[in-house]
């Protein structure tokens, strides 16, 4: 069973030859393939990460711009509303003034007519009272 002979050194040499052979055929080329691939994947991941970051930054920038624009729009709307409010209140005030003026004019007209009517009435009152007095006096 424990039968040592020249098989031992020859087997050792044969094994070393196999190591060299497989190193040339297997470990070096396949290792290079594996390393190249992992390098490739790593670099691709890196660029993808960079692009993701830049796109995220862009999105943030756009978001900020959007906020700005929205704010601007709100302020425009607010100023327009204020202006419209101003215009409306000015016109309302004007209209109220005009109405006031017209009312005053009408009031004056009414007063004038009232006075003339009163004056006319005064004349008639005098006349009627004269007639009453005459009638009373003649009757008496």
């Amino acid at each position: 069973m424990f039968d040592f002979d020249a098989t031992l050194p020859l087997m050792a040499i044969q094994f070393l030859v196999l190591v060299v052979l497989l190193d040339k055929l297997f470990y070096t080329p396949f290792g290079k393939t594996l390393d190249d691939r992992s390098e490739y994947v790593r670099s691709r991941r890196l660029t993808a990460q960079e692009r993701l970051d830049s796109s995220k930054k862009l999105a943030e920038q756009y978001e900020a711009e959007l906020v700005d624009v929205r704010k601007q729009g709100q302020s425009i709307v607010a100023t327009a509303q204020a202006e419209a409010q101003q215009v409306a209140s000015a016109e309302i005030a004007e209209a109220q003034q005009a109405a006031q003026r017209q009312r005053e004019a009408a009031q004056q007209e009414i007063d004038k007519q009232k006075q003339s009517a009163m004056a006319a009435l005064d004349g008639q009152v005098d006349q009627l009272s004269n007639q009453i007095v005459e009638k009373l006096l003649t009757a008496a």
Partner: protein
Amino acid sequence: MMMPNSLIFSNFLSLAELEVGRHFYWDLGGFSLHGQVFLTSWFVIGLLVIATVLAGRDRKQIPTGLQNFMEYVLEFIRNLAKNQLGEKEYRPWVPFIGTLFLFIFVSNWSGALIPWKFIELPEGELAAPTGDINTTVALALLVSLAYFYAGFKKRGLGYFSKYVEPTPILLPIAILEDFTKPLSLSFRLFGNILADELVVAVLVLLVPLFIPIPVMMLGLFTSAIQALVFATLAGAYIHEALEGHGDDDH
């Protein structure tokens, strides 16, 4: 082969003798060789080389089929070496540890899966190369050389300081370790593979059909584990030689 029950035990012994002791001797300039070991080891080496050549003919960025499989194998080996030697040191040792694993693994499984018995040899029989003590001792001695080489290359003569490093009292044990390491490596592998083949052979002899299958499955499992253990221990020994006791930086 029919035999009375009382004869089984004696037949078992003669069977074990017959299985293990006989070799298909070759003569090479006065040195004798175990021919059957070389034949199967050439088969194993050829299988490995053909597989790598076929897989490596047209390597693509996105692997398919055999290339994918061989890349998986390489990643497995790299992880094995990395776990033992650490991220920094493992790369130059991948070919050695990886070839240890692949050679032992393919040897073990070829011994368990390929019906070598159908190929008649003048004497002895074809089996896993790792079931021969010469192969396992050769591999174990190579591991010893490898870790000595690693230690000397990394630390020069300072490598010897590890023998007296914590205390010189342990010097004999430290020296003894250099002998027990290859001894345990080679005998563990040899014993496991030979015992597995013997058990399967005996069971096949007793009950030719179906009964040996669970034992064969177990044999496949232990064969794979043995290959892993051998490669892992080789990595661990090399790591130990590289690290030393005191002057490491972790």
